[in-house]
């Protein structure tokens, strides 16, 4: 497959900076965009059927079209890049930017121009030191070339681009939590509506978009919507950065056609399972997705196909559950994460998640009682839908899925008063 998002990523080479990026055709998409009307760019993006790569798969063209039309107030409009990437098991955006920072900036410029935004923020987590350093350098390079600033390339469009380095909290990756964090507040979610496109950062029209989505934009502008649609293998268009972590021989991430199967991902790209371990299931894309089991390994992994099966693509970076790892303990680890990272704003999430964690912990330690599983099923039903944001909903996806697919493991823990997997494992509770 022709590398598209990864065309400037060559193993062993350093990061691609401005000169090399432009030599390889970089910023020609942006220069082309500047000669076009924003409505025409929006049409291409809509026709390309590009969907948000942050996990939710929201149609990008539709998101942009919801930004309120430019008014004459002269007040700023904002475009935010969500580079928080704190979804457990996810590292695809880091992979893209730490070798090719300009691709993100170019995508950001085209998107901001299309939405008539004049200020951009790249919201990045503090732990991504290398991408932060590269982006700072790349932004300075782009400014030096006149790609930001006043009257860019004679187009009459003004744009300034800044980096905000977070201080760490999963909630910052939630669209409205991110906006609160940028305003210097606790990253609690906001009630929607109003949506950020109407009233976002400091009450102004704002778009929040994931890194990988933005990286697709320059290529779509240059090569057209039809081309992008043709890249997908199944029902969704384009390419995707898929990944795998866990007990595989070659963990990492790879650019593949949208709709690649788990079998291809694990067997061809991740080098198969480590010796002594076999594939049992995988969370398809980060912690907030469901388990795709061995019988589903030939399903094309795209947003719609997975959704139809009660699964979700999420971020596309799979976390593999092998046959030697306890699914109950795995759920306990996942729920510990959510319980800790819950911002505490909504009661079902704040109170429910630590309760779920405790129930799972007691089952794992052999203190589970009959009725515990029913209680977990109940929790999964009531916690998720009754909150402002999707954190708790996402927290329940892997749990509900595990309770369905690995019910026998839960029962066995309760029946035998011990974890059948824990022999020789340290239980660090």
């Amino acid at each position: 497959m022709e590398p598209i998002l990864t065309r400037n990523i060559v193993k062993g080479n350093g990061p691609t900076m401005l000169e090399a990026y432009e030599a390889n055709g970089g910023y020609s998409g942006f220069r082309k965009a500047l000669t076009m009307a924003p409505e025409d760019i929006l049409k291409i993006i809509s026709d390309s059927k590009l969907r948000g790569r942050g996990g939710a798969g929201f149609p990008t063209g539709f998101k942009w079209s919801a930004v309120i039309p430019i008014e004459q107030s002269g007040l700023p409009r904002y475009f935010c890049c969500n580079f928080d990437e704190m979804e457990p098991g996810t590292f695809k955006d880091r992979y893209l930017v730490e070798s090719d920072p300009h691709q993100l900036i170019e995508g950001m410029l085209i998107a901001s121009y299309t939405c008539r935004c004049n200020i951009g923020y790249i919201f990045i987590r503090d732990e991504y030191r290398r991408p932060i350093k590269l982006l700072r350098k790349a932004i300075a390079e782009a400014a030096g070339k006149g790609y930001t600033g006043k009257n860019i390339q004679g187009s009459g469009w003004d744009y300034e681009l800044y980096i905000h380095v977070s201080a760490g909290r999963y909630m910052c990756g939630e669209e409205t939590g991110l906006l609160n964090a940028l305003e210097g507040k606790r990253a609690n979610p906001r009630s929607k509506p109003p949506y950020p496109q109407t009233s976002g950062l400091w009450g102004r029209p704002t778009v929040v978009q994931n890194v990988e989505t933005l990286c697709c934009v320059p290529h779509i502008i240059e090569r057209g919507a039809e081309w992008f649609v043709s890249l997908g293998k199944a029902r969704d268009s384009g390419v995707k950065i898929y990944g795998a972590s866990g007990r595989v021989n070659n963990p990492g991430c790879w650019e593949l056609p949208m709709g690649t199967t788990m079998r291809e991902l694990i067997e061809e790209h991740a080098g198969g399972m480590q010796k002594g371990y076999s594939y049992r299931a995988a969370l398809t894309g980060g912690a907030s997705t469901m388990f795709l089991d061995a019988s589903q390994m030939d399903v094309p992994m795209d947003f719609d196909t997975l959704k139809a099966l009660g699964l979700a693509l999420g971020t596309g970076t799979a976390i593999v559950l092998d046959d030697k790892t306890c699914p109950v303990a795995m759920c306990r680890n996942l729920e510990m994460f959510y319980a800790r990272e819950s911002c505490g704003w909504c009661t079902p999430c704040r109170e429910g998640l630590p309760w779920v964690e405790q129930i799972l912990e007691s089952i794992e330690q052999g203190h589970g009682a009959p009725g515990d599983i029913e209680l977990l099923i109940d929790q999964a039903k009531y916690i998720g839908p009754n909150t402002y944001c999707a954190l708790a909903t996402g927290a329940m996806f892997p749990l509900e899925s595990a309770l369905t697919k690995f019910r026998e493991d839960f029962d066995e823990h309760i029946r035998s008063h011990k974890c059948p997997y824990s022999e020789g494992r340290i239980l660090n509770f």
Partner: protein
Amino acid sequence: MLTEQEKQEIEEELAHLPTRQAGCIDALKVVQKHRGWVSDEALDDLSPVLGMSPAEIDSVATFYNLIFRKPVGKHVILICDSISCWVMGEESILAYLQRKLGIKLGQTTADGMFTLIPTVCLGHCEQAPVMMMDGDIIGNLTEEKIDQILSGAR
């Protein structure tokens, strides 16, 4: 009182922001960079600069994982305990670290050299298990690697 250096760095962060409050997280980071952590006194110091009450600033400071409201050691070790690292043996790595340092999670060694803090996914899952020390990612952790890193830091 804020030093001249701190004041200057905070003003640089605030320069492009439309409100003083928007620079709250950046200002907390500046103070932490120079003082190692954010004390009650630091909240008082920042209050007039940001136009926020110390309690309001504290509500922000305590929200974010990487703002320390207690003193920390010279080296801060953030050990990832999220799912990919956990699958790859984080529990035994953590147990080894605690034994080796003689402290539990959240504590600082008696000589003030190391603080050990659990953290959520560091986004380097292909190198699991992973930890971060003083801003550097250290992946594919083994007991030997930990020995090396700790003795190198001492």
